[in-house]
């Protein structure tokens, strides 16, 4: 365990898990694969995998897995104990928050971030050691900039 942490390169190809398959996560998955990473994408609904870039799924650089991001069994199917990055990007803030905390505390995943679109909640999570990103805030800023100019 300690050895693998030491020898694991900080840069270079990584294993990543993305929770929730949507237009945002599919675009992030594609970019990570282009950097050389391997990405597992978990979603309970297999229709959501239509968002993923087909060629990358075919070449198995993106691996879709039907499952629940808070289930240890499903996370382990996505290689959770050997993953460097976990991004929880579903539309459900608190589901993301739970999965992020599982990754951090149960699998000691090195890089963990989750999407929390509720502004008040998003402000709370850093105190709990969870890196929370408010995608709604970021896009609303862009729209407001446009509307204001």
């Amino acid at each position: 365990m300690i050895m693998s942490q030491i020898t694991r390169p900080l840069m270079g190809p990584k294993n990543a898990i993305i929770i929730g398959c949507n237009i945002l996560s599919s675009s992030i998955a594609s970019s990570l694969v282009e950097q050389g990473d391997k990405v597992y994408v978990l979603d309970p609904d297999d229709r959501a995998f239509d968002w993923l870039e087909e060629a990358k799924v075919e070449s198995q650089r993106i691996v879709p897995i039907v499952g629940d991001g808070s289930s240890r069994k499903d996370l382990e199917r996505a290689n959770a104990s050997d993953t460097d990055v976990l991004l929880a990007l579903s539309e459900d803030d608190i589901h993301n928050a739970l999965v992020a905390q599982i990754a951090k505390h149960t699998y000691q995943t090195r890089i963990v971030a989750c999407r929390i679109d509720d502004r008040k909640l998003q402000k709370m999570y850093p105190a709990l050691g969870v890196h929370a990103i408010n995608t709604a805030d970021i896009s609303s800023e862009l729209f407001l900039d446009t509307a204001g100019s």
Partner: protein
Amino acid sequence: MHTIIVGGEKIGVSIGEWLVSEGHEIAVIDFDKNACTNIDEALGAVSVFGVCMNVNVLQKAGAERADVVIATTTRDDVNLAACQIAKQMYHVPRTVSIINDQDNADLFDSLGIDLIVNLTNLLTSHIQEGITSNVVAQLMPISGTGNEKSLLMLRVPREYSNSTLPLKSLPLPEGAAVTLVIRRDGTVSFPDETIMLQAGDEVLLIGSDVVERELRDFVARGPTII
């Protein structure tokens, strides 16, 4: 004492009934309008309609002056968020959460939820006790000891009705201890080398899973014939 119950299904309502009967003030949060109507009928006007993750809803439930938050929904992510919001934003002194997925037990514990009620475990051990004549029962896990100990109860089985079982003959590895002996007539004695147990007596002790197994095996062997 003001308690906020998150989730107004059967468990939430039943806890609410108990708190109200003890004279405490409660608020019950549920996102289902019908559930709220039922809550108000059962407990008086204490329901708050909405989702607990919404800070405005928690505020309406009186989070600022709450002493306890009890999360009783069937979703562990909701229960965790409710407890974390209560602690982080409103400094609620005690948070209690039901967990539905056993795998979350250690996580919730390390995240500082004060009391975790593991429904699956509770039900399983209850059913085990009911369908087997289990002589050793796990009454309550003792958290915070770092090595998974529980309060155990040994009930001396019928096989011992014609003989006695010296208390000191119980196999107790290091770290296990007898705390109390309850005789079948209801009298209570502190552990003592000279106690001879009889059928129907109960022994309360602290020990790990290993102790539980060893005791069970020991008692299953039956009275020793000398």
